[in-house]
């Protein structure tokens, strides 16, 4: 439900970053979306199209790059990839996980034409 808010923020931030670079056109925007960021990719894609419509970035290709989450077992310190907040440690089997990555939602880069 909050994806529309996020899409509007992305459009706004893209326009601000493009203006700061003095760009005429934004061809592509890469957005990193962590698998535990609480964002539905399909929904964000849909909302981006709607949020960009009738703006200078209406033709921009907004590319969502999924980032796999990682965690560390607080018991045995083993680091591993996770797909949820409560995955058991593959080394010791305990469920005592600290999420170390995969919660990010950020604009990585802009490809622009001057």
């Amino acid at each position, binding site marked *: 439900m909050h994806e529309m808010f996020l899409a509007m*923020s992305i459009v706004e931030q893209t326009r601000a970053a493009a203006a700061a670079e003095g760009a005429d056109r934004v061809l592509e925007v890469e957005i990193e979306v962590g698998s535990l*960021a*609480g964002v539905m990719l399909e929904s964000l894609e849909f909302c981006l199209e709607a949020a960009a419509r009738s703006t200078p970035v209406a033709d921009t290709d907004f590319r969502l790059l999924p980032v796999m989450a990682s965690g560390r077992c607080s018991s045995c310190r083993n680091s591993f990839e996770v797909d949820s907040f409560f995955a058991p440690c593959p080394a010791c089997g305990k469920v*005592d996980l600290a999420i170390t990555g995969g919660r*990010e939602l*950020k604009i990585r880069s802009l490809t622009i034409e001057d």
Partner: protein
Amino acid sequence: MCDSCDCGGHGEKVTFRKPGEVHGIPEQRSRTVRVEVDVLAKNEEISARNRAYFESNDILALNLVSSPGSGKTTILERTIRDMRGRTPMAVIEGDQQTLRDAERIGATGVEVVQVNTGAGCHLDGSMVHRAMHRLTLAPDSILFIENVGNLVCPAMFDLGEAAKVVIISVTEGEDKPQKYPQMFAAASLCLINKIDLLPHLDFDVGACREFAGQVNPKLEFIEISATTGEGMEGWYAWLNGRVGR
């Protein structure tokens, strides 16, 4: 791809060259710039300002989150009636529509502002910022921020609070922490409400705690009934241990 200079040809597949020219000229004069900007940066910035204000004025700001109907407003009504006179309190109420919750809280005698988000599914830092300017916040006080009833979206939006308090009532499923892990992962305290109804239900408190503990091993629990008052002293002790610190 050009290895010789910064002609802009890096990564370009199509280039055009005349005999004698050293560098490829890309078809389009495009370039890629790294920005690395957090999409929620603006909210984080406003919330950081809220947090700084709360901390410098010794205001304990708590973000109360839950599904609709878990008893957030009833918990607040009872808390305010029981703690009034000892601790100054104020409330920001978040709902999509109506002044109902603000009227209930207002009847307890504390200052309250209702934020109606309209179509919005959560409060954000800016809404809290604007709401808090309409309140008189005393030093060593508690500001309760009752978020929109929703276990999904409010988890993403920092308001500047000292802690998130997630409320689950025993009329819900004990597996909610696993179904909505974002919220339980972000919370510091879990209030398990309506425990007076346990004899009539199949809710397994132990399983609920275990599910939530797997999502967030540091999560604290207090079992309460805002209707009968059972367990509320534990909640007040938790608050008193944090206010004015």
